[in-house]
């Protein structure tokens, strides 16, 4: 009886041993040589596979970098400045990294303060909704609030609050521009993270119309223009204030004086959003 058991154990061990030998033999024949440079670059890259560099994922970019020395090494926006410095060391190059850019939703019209033409009751999808009379809000430049951009964001930087306001956290955003291309209203734009402020409105309607349909839109009053006094920084074109990022004149005063407060700081948008959320909720009640 015990002999039978031992034979079984022995046979299984033997077969396992020979199969293992066979496999190690085969894997020796079919070894794959991996370029050590590719491995090093892949380690350095952030690994979010956002596609901002234009290559299929971080592995694709690392592969391309190792094969072709003419490819720019500053294409990775999530990696930022520190990554370019490391890649300079590794590949013996001398590249600079331009300022980090982040995406911003250029609209703050929420359910409480923007008037609606109708109530959309269909699929939870911006593109679908914008096919019906360009969305439910009266302002046709407005954010749909259905969050197509949230679905494509690789790092979950885009938030939506209880009033269906969609906003992007600059500290998390990696600047891959996926949300820019998916937005049916084209109201997500890229701004430099150190640019100070941005105008959270895309409406080219005249001031009177904006006042009627949305409490948080640019009414083209030109107060910001007068306070700043610098036409190369902020200027009202076609009924909409536009901030230029060629210089960094402080827009703090303009932001405070703005009657509809649509000039919003880029970095601390979270504080701003939470602050105004409570006010808007009170208005709704």
């Amino acid at each position, binding site marked *: 009886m015990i002999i*039978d058991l031992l*034979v*079984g154990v022995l*046979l*299984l061990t033997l*077969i*396992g041993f020979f*199969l293992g030998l*066979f*496999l190690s033999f*085969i*894997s020796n024949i*079919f*070894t*794959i040589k991996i370029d050590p440079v590719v491995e090093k670059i892949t380690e350095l890259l952030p690994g979010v596979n956002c596609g901002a560099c234009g290559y299929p994922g971080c592995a694709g970019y690392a592969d391309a970098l190792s094969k072709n020395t003419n490819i720019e090494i500053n294409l990775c926006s999530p990696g930022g400045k520190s990554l370019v410095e490391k890649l300079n060391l590794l590949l013996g190059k001398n590249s600079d990294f331009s300022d980090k850019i982040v995406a911003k939703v250029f609209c703050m019209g929420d359910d409480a303060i923007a008037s609606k033409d109708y109530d959309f009751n269909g699929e939870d999808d911006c593109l679908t909704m914008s096919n019906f009379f360009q969305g439910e809000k009266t302002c046709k430049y407005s954010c749909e609030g259905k969050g197509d951009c949230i679905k494509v964001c690789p790092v979950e930087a885009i938030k939506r609050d209880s009033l269906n306001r969609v906003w992007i956290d600059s500290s998390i955003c990696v600047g891959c521009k996926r949300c820019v291309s998916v937005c049916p209203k084209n109201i997500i734009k890229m701004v430099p993270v150190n640019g100070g402020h941005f105008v959270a409105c895309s409406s080219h309607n005249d001031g009177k119309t904006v006042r009627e349909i949305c409490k948080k839109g640019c009414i083209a009053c030109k107060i910001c223009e007068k306070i700043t006094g610098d036409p190369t920084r902020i200027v009202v074109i076609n009924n909409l204030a536009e901030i230029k990022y060629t210089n960094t004149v402080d827009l703090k005063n303009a932001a405070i004086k703005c009657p509809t407060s649509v000039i919003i700081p880029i970095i601390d948008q979270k504080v701003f959003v939470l602050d105004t959320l409570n006010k808007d909720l009170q208005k709704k009640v």
Partner: protein
Amino acid sequence: MSGEIIAIAIGTIFINNFVFSQFLGICPFIGVSKKLDSVLGMGLAVIFVMTLGSMVTYLIYKYLLVPFNLQYLKIIFFILIIASIVQFIEIILKKQLPFLYNALGIYLPLITTNCAVLGVALLNINKNYNFIESLIHGFSGGVGFLIALFLMSTIREKLDLATIPKAFKGVPIAFISAGLMALAFLAADRSMLDIFK
């Protein structure tokens, strides 16, 4: 003899199809059938593993397990052998066809625990097949699996575009369609084999 072999082949592909009649190997069936592109690679890998697996397991059973009276150990032996064959394929694919390797992803190692592959080896023993018959049984089992994968993936590519209730989107509707296809496969029965008599 040849009639019997054809009967086994037809019977395994259509009448006792591993997916639709015996409900084996459902995990890779649902997992891989999302896109038509990876179906052929997966199907060929399964055919290869099933054919080689049923050959080797038959030989091991007949010439090692039976003489030593170790039939009760057949499951663990078979799993060991199938796992090695899958590893073998994985090493070769990784070197020779890296695109297919990436497309199959986790499902290639999962063939190891694919119950259809173990099922083929155990059914060979249960049905008292000889060497040629188990080879045919393994090969046609793989072909049946490939056909099931192919049919399912064409349907699922269409299902992605159809308007389905939210609760049924994705895998649930795939299971329901698989069930309906299993019903359709009930039409294949013994009468199919009458032509060969």
